[in-house]
């Protein structure tokens, strides 16, 4: 019997440079957005995605051929790619947009990723963060799956890949609890919080990351137009919480609820 050709996994991990989670966000005076003159770092869900890719390689060893990180952003975004390389990605792609350009929208990102995958046909697994903590859109992974016609398993909290049979078993976190999906590769996975705990980039790996290649591309090279199709009308802070009050008894509570219009009590 002829042996089947060796199946090798090629993973793509898109990452985003977002405002650091610990920063106190402030709306800018023009009410068009938030103050971006603050610390930025890799979107935490994307860190989980990179970590998962590296763990898959640690488990499957030679069956994982390559882990490629990609980001779409201004020149500063290259720091995010270096972090991904220091965590264990082999190479990276930087789709560079000018500093002054507006942040790409999920559909634009998905189209760019599709163009990259069309150029790198060996990619058969894409792991993304479920959402970015700046816009909380949570759309890119799903849109990419739609554009490519690939299966998708979102909000993953556990991933097992069988490379030989080209099948993945993914445990998803859903509103009612969890759901297990069996998916055929090629596949889009988006990561949820409990999937893993990302490693710290150790010093030797940070130094090794210096030598790993970063390919620079422009959106025009990929035939993608990142002009926004959504217009932000206004950005405001949520209304300040007004103090509550304490009630003395259950009857008083019921009376107050009735006053407030809750008739179902």
């Amino acid at each position: 019997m002829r042996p089947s050709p060796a199946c090798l996994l090629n993973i793509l991990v898109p990452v985003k440079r977002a405002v650091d989670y610990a920063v106190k966000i402030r709306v800018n005076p023009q009410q068009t957005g938030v103050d971006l003159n603050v610390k930025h770092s890799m979107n935490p869900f994307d860190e989980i995605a990179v970590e998962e890719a590296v763990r898959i390689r640690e488990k499957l060893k030679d069956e994982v051929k390559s882990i490629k990180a990609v980001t779409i952003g201004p020149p500063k975004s290259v720091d995010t790619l270096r972090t991904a390389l220091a965590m264990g990605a082999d190479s990276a792609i930087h789709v560079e947009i000018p500093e002054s350009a507006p942040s790409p929208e999920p559909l634009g990102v998905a189209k760019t990723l599709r163009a990259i995958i069309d150029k790198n046909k060996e990619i058969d697994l894409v792991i993304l963060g479920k959402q970015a903590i700046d816009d909380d859109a949570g759309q890119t992974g799903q849109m990419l799956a739609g554009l490519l016609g690939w299966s998708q398993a979102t909000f993953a909290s556990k991933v097992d890949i069988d490379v030989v049979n080209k099948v993945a078993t993914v445990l998803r976190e859903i509103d009612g609890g969890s759901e297990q999906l069996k998916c055929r590769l090629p596949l889009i996975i988006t990561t949820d919080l409990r999937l893993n705990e990302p490693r710290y980039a150790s010093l030797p790996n940070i130094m090794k990351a210096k030598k790993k290649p970063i390919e620079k591309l422009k959106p025009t090279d990929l035939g993608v137009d990142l002009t926004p199709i959504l217009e932000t009308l206004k950005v405001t802070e949520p209304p300040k919480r007004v103090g509550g009050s304490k009630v003395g008894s259950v009857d008083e509570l019921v009376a107050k609820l009735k006053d407030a219009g809750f008739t179902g009590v």
Partner: protein
Amino acid sequence: MFRHIVKTALPVPRRTVARGFATTRARRDVEGARIASLDTFTEEENMIRESVQRFATDVVKPKVREMDENEMMDPSIIKGLFEQGLMGIETSADHGGSESSFTSAIIAIEELAKVDPSVSVLCDVHNTLVNTVLRKYATEEQKAKWLPQLSESKLGSFCLSEAASGSDAFALQTRATKSGDDYIINGSKMWITNSYEAEIFLVFANIDSSKGYKGITCFLATKDMGVQIAKKEEKLGIRASSTCTLSFDDVKIPAANIIGGEGKGYKIAIEILNEGRIGIAAQMLGLAQGAFDLAVPYTYQRSQFGQPIGTFQGMAFQFAEAATQIEAARLLTYNAARRKESGLSFVKEAAMAKWWASKVAESVSGKAIEWMGGTGFTRETGWRSIGEIRRLGRSMRGRRISSCRLLPSLFRRSIHR
């Protein structure tokens, strides 16, 4: 010299200052290139800072109080430091190290000190004293044998001081008597950092007291050769860092373990302690910054008399002074580090950095306790060792008096050149 700094600084100009120096020599060397500021770091150095910061906050911080109360370093912290590659920062990759710059080591030491000075001193001694001695003075065989162990799993210790010889290091009395291919070491060392957990010891002993300090030789001993811990000190501060008295009773060390050659110990000690001063400056800097970063935000939350206490002018003046002193300490420390990296003379700058940073650490940490009021004084919310460590910087590795003697003698020398 300037070109070297430009080469390392240019790729990522974080804060660029287009400022030439007003000397002819500078103009000739620089030729139109921009010299970035003293606080410009390479991309790798910034990544290292972030990585160590996260490690310190996520892994070390939760254990700080427990380690201090128990006066014991948690083994998982030491293991974590090895795993992060923080125990062979400058060591080459061939020997299992991270092959990073000296400034990277200083950055790591500073960031660790912001969270726990005990962990920082452990890392500092291991890197800037033990590893560096081997990298600079050991033979290739010795490097290949010991550096990988020090990078990957074994903690090192630097044994110079004794009960009767601290600042006057060359008055040491530990003897080494030749016996065939070995030396028999007898004596006692005191105030030795890391000694409780260490497995590799650099021991300074005299092989021929008739030669005075020129008989002092550096030996590498392993714990299983019979190094004994006579007493673990109970300190006022950096309590999690072990400081012990060691005794050497007929400890047999092969002559092959002599580092740098017979009678070269005094030279090694002097030179390594020059570099070590920059490490201490970094520890003091981190301590000061950590105290400041803990206390000031508190003052913007704590309200008395109708406003956050940090907004009172009297407090604001103190913050400004403290912040400026810390900035000066920062620039002194990193400039000394860069000078050393560039091969420039740095003895004076290192001594200045250590002296100033220790002074600032003492004053800022004391102020920080005041700013935090009652909470600054409790072991739970105050920074445990603030009150005690601050004094330590002055005594660590040579009293301030030593720096104060060293500096003027350097000035005298430079004036008479």
